[in-house]
Structures are given as structure tokens and as C-alpha cells.
């Protein structure tokens, strides 16, 4: 792997987000730094037949296509992209097939594939250099970011807009409930004793990534740098993570290697931390394997404890949280903590405000099929 020319380092020049915490990235940072969870009773559909009943939801019934367009528009505007620059940018969208497509006649389903949704979003926002949808479940957003970064670093793209969205819906709620994956107590308690599982959350996010040289040429604001990224598999099971966190460890090592950084350089870890028994334990082992002695020193939190698990958008929403952490100098709190679990011996951020000025932060995500991603974000 050749070292990139400095001008090809991917940087983030615009972003926006929507979550159950409210509209915008600022309110998301505030709630995460304060450790104020956004969970409440599900109001969007009837949950009386399910074991679980909570989610992190916006009020009402937002329409995903519209919220994606709004957030993507905000990110492009924040990056001060001209119409011409948008036209030269490609769009990578992380999401799942709209369940409504299943109610369409077979011949009409081609209009509602994830790629078709990506095309619609690209057209609405004037992004005309190509589009693709990522459907890799809970690493879809972070995988899209990694691919965007790789394309920029290898010189095959100058600018890529990455967007992602999930809004809590009855189909996924029913699936997760049937799989007994949802926490009956309605809280996400990452790495905590007494953790009971996941809580789904609304999440829509968009990020503008471009080469450092392109950002400099047009005088664009640089919010953070994507210093490194890594993608790896557990090769273990259809849905369970490897108990030793091997894929996660490999992804972290790849990200550090790509950035030319060591574990000691990491000032904060935004963990995958879904609050399930097996996954949190595996992630702990993986972090220890990848970071060595640093693993028990570096502050760790999972912002899912505030905004919930936003599925395909989680990797991107949590990247937004991580960028905000570097810029604001306050670490997200690992909310919902009840006490130590001997299998999760990490340096958890359990109370705020926790002020810190990390130069590098790691954002981790994992998904079914043993998919793992690690994004190493550097301060601007």
C-alpha cells in the first residue's frame, strides 16, 4: 500500500444529521455529551403484540426520502458546494429496501430498489457523478464512508457525498422483537451489567468527503480528517460476532496502519456498543487485542446509549458524533450504565461533562455476517 500524496487525504467539509435528539448535528452532540437518552414509547405503530415497546423516535411519521433530501442538502450547503461542484460529486447512500416495495406488484419493484432511492436522492440534490446504495446492514454507512475515502485516496474521485437513513418502522421492529434482540427495559446500556439488548432509533445523516487538495483549492471548511479506515470480517457466524472480536480487531489495526498511527494516538473510541450481551463482550476483547495496553486507558462510549441503534445509518450518524467530539472537546457519555461487567473492562465515559481534546478518535461498527468497520478520524 503506497503512502498517499498529502493532497489526497480525505477530509470532511460538510455534514448534517437528524435523530431522535432533534434536527441538526448540534443537538445530537449536546445530548450525547450530556448522556441524555432519547428513548420513549413507540408511537408510530402498535407495539402491543411485541415484547419490547420503546424506540428513539422523532415525533410523527417522517418520510425517509424527504428527510434524506433535507439532510443531504444541509450537508452540501454547509460544505459550500456550488451547483457545478455538486454535479461533479457522486452519492453513496446507505439504506435498506423500503418495506413498502414488498406491497408493490413485482413489475414495479424496480422503481423502489435501494439504488433507485439513491438515484432519486442524487437527482434531488444535484449530485450527478454517479450513485450507489450500500445495504450491508449496520455497517452500510461506515462501509460507504470507507469506500468513499478509498476512492478519494486512490485518486478515482475528488469528492463523494455519503448519506444514510433509517426511520423506526414496524417491519424492523417486528423482526428485532422476534429475534429477541430488543431490550425489554427500553434502554441501551452498552458494556454495562444488566444490559438487555438494543433499542432502535431514527437516524439520518449526510457527510461531504473530498480530497484535502480539493478542499484547499476552493477554500472549503475542513471539519475533520479521515485519517484511516479498515474493513474486515469475523468469518464466524451468520449473525453472532466472533467471541474474540477478531474481525473488529483486524479492522482497527487496518485503520491505524493506514493512518500511520499507534494505539497511543487514539484519544476516544465511539464504540459499536449495541448493548447486547455477546456483542459488547466481543467488542471488548477485540479492542484489547487491537489496542493492547491502551484499550483500558482510552475513554470509550457508545452513543447508541443516547440515539439508539439506527441500523444502516448508524455508521454515518456515529461518524457525525465522532467529528463533533473532536471539534467540541466533550466526550459522549455512555448512558444507561448500571455497573461494571467483568467481561467489559473498558474506561467508559459514565458521567458528563467530560472535557478532552483528542487528536484522533475511532468510530467502530459491526453487523450480521461478521462485518466490521473502523474509521479513524483526525482533528482538523
Amino acid at each position, binding site marked *: *500500500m503506497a503512502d498517499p500524496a498529502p493532497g489526497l487525504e480525505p477530509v470532511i467539509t460538510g455534514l448534517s444529521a437528524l435523530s431522535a435528539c432533534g434536527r441538526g448535528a448540534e443537538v445530537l452532540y449536546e445530548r450525547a455529551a450530556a448522556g441524555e437518552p432519547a428513548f420513549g414509547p413507540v408511537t408510530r405503530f402498535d407495539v402491543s403484540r411485541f415484547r419490547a415497546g420503546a424506540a428513539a423516535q422523532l415525533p410523527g411519521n417522517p418520510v425517509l426520502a424527504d428527510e434524506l433530501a433535507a439532510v443531504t442538502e444541509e450537508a452540501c450547503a454547509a460544505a459550500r458546494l456550488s451547483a457545478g461542484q455538486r454535479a461533479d460529486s457522486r452519492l453513496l447512500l446507505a439504506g*435498506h*429496501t423500503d*418495506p413498502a*416495495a*414488498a*406491497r408493490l*406488484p*413485482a*413489475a414495479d*419493484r*424496480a422503481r423502489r*430498489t*435501494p*439504488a433507485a432511492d*439513491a*438515484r432519486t436522492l442524487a437527482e434531488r440534490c444535484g449530485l450527478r457523478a*454517479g450513485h*450507489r*446504495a*450500500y*445495504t*450491508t446492514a449496520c*455497517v452500510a454507512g461506515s*462501509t460507504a464512508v470507507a*469506500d468513499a475515502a*478509498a*476512492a478519494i485516496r*486512490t*485518486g*478515482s474521485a475528488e469528492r463523494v457525498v455519503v448519506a444514510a437513513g433509517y426511520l423506526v418502522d*414496524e*417491519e*424492523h421492529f*417486528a*423482526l*428485532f*422483537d*422476534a*429475534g429477541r434482540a430488543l431490550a425489554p427495559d427500553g434502554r441501551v446500556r452498552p458494556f454495562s451489567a444488566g444490559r438487555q439488548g438494543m433499542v432502535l432509533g431514527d437516524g439520518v445523516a449526510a457527510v461531504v468527503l473530498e480530497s484535502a487538495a480539493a478542499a484547499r483549492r476552493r477554500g472549503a471548511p475542513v471539519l475533520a480528517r479521515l485519517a484511516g479506515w*479498515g*474493513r*474486515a*470480517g*469475523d*468469518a*464466524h*457466524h*451468520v*449473525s453472532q460476532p466472533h467471541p474474540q472480536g*477478531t*474481525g473488529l480487531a*483486524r479492522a482497527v489495526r*487496518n485503520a491505524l496502519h*493506514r493512518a500511520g498511527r499507534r494505539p497511543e494516538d487514539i484519544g476516544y473510541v465511539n464504540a459499536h456498543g449495541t448493548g447486547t450481551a455477546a456483542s459488547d463482550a466481543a467488542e471488548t476483547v477485540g479492542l484489547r487485542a487491537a489496542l493492547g495496553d491502551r484499550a483500558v486507558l482510552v475513554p470509550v462510549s457508545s452513543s447508541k446509549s443516547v440515539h439508539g441503534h439506527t441500523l444502516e445509518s448508524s455508521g454515518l450518524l456515529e461518524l457525525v458524533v465522532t467529528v463533533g467530539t473532536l471539534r467540541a472537546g466533550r466526550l459522549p457519555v455512555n448512558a444507561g450504565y448500571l455497573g461494571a461487567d467483568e467481561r467489559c473492562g473498558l474506561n467508559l465515559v459514565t458521567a458528563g461533562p467530560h472535557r478532552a481534546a483528542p487528536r484522533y478518535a475511532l468510530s467502530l461498527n459491526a*453487523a*450480521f*455476517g*461478521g*462485518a466490521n468497520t473502523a474509521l479513524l478520524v483526525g482533528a482538523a
Partner: protein
Amino acid sequence: MSPTTHRAGADRSTTDRAETETDRPTPHRTGAEHLTDHRAGAAVHSPTTRQAGATANTVRARAAWPEPGDTGAPAMPAGFIASTFPALVATVADRCLRRGYGEPGGPAAGGGERRTAVVLVSERGDQGTLDAVAAAVDGGRRMQPLLFFQSVPNAVLGWVAARWELVGPVVCVSPGGDPAAEGLELADLLIEDGDADDVLLLLADQAAGDGRPDRATAFLITRPS
């Protein structure tokens, strides 16, 4: 874009490419020209600096469903229900990997791990599972728990990766352009970027309700030594 699964050229892959072979095509011509129409050729000629001077990745093995002699439906992997999609993906993946790597559990070259990425390119994804989920929700019926575990395309890729001990990235996309060309672009990027030495590229879509069978193609693409 047309919802057809694969281009007419896919048929050629079943007649003369059923055995393991190694091609040494020019960059991005790793079988694409045999799969797709001339749009794949456009990907070869797109002016990207990445292509300039790039050493060609090679196609170590390929497979398809159906191939001559295939009858009935592909076998369902253990733990999956209700949809033909997991069977389609698992079968074509297994077939390709046998041709490329030998037997599951066999040693990797050099004795190390197989840093093989698994990349699924599917325009419509698992329509069978989508239908089963919708039917349960609309009918107010109990959701079968196994549907949860297969509700995302990663699941069957995890089955493949576990069986063959593949520790590279796991990626699923719905392509904005020609599926084969986009899959090859992704494979090349993963190898060039360094997270994978090999890529198992799977192109799969269930029949679009037009009477044709489910179809899938698989390529095992390898970094040149």
C-alpha cells in the same frame, strides 16, 4: 436502469467457463466483457488515475447458477427459510470457491489467513424475505425468528465467510450502474486499498416475476502475485 438481473453475456459464462481458469485480462476486463454488454467496456475506458499503470487483478475462478446440468433449485443453506435468495447466493459462492480454493477448511496459500472480501451486488436484494416479512406484518401474524437473522444480505455472506474462513471485508450494494462493472470496480478498489487480497464477487438477483429463473454469477478475483 433495467431491472434485468444479468446481461445476455452471462449465458456465455456457463458454457465455456465452468472449470477453474486464470485469466490475465487488462485492468477491469476481469470477465466483465463476458458478462455484460458494452457498458462494462465503458468502465475500462473511464479516465481515472487509478487505472493508469495499475497491475491487472486476475479472475481465479468463476461460477454461475444455473449452469448446464443444474436442475431444480439451489440448495438452501442451514438456518435459512422462506426465500430462494440465500440458496442462490450460497450455492454460487460455494461453487466458485471450490473451483478457486479447493475444499472448505483447506489451507490457504502460504498457510496464512484468507483475506478474501465477500462482495454482493444485487439490485433488488432478497425479495423473498422482504415478502415474508411484509406478509407477517400485514397479516398480524407472529414473525418467524429466523427471518430476523436473514433479514439483511450480510447474513448469507457470513455463512459463506464462516464456511470458507474468509476474513476480508463484507460488502453488499445495490448498484447504480451496470452490476458487473460496478462489482469489478468495487473489487479492484478493495484490493488496491489494501483490506483484501482476493475478492469473491457475487452478482445475484431473484427473478423479477417475469417467469425466468433466479440467476447469479460469482467471480473469485485475486491480486496478482
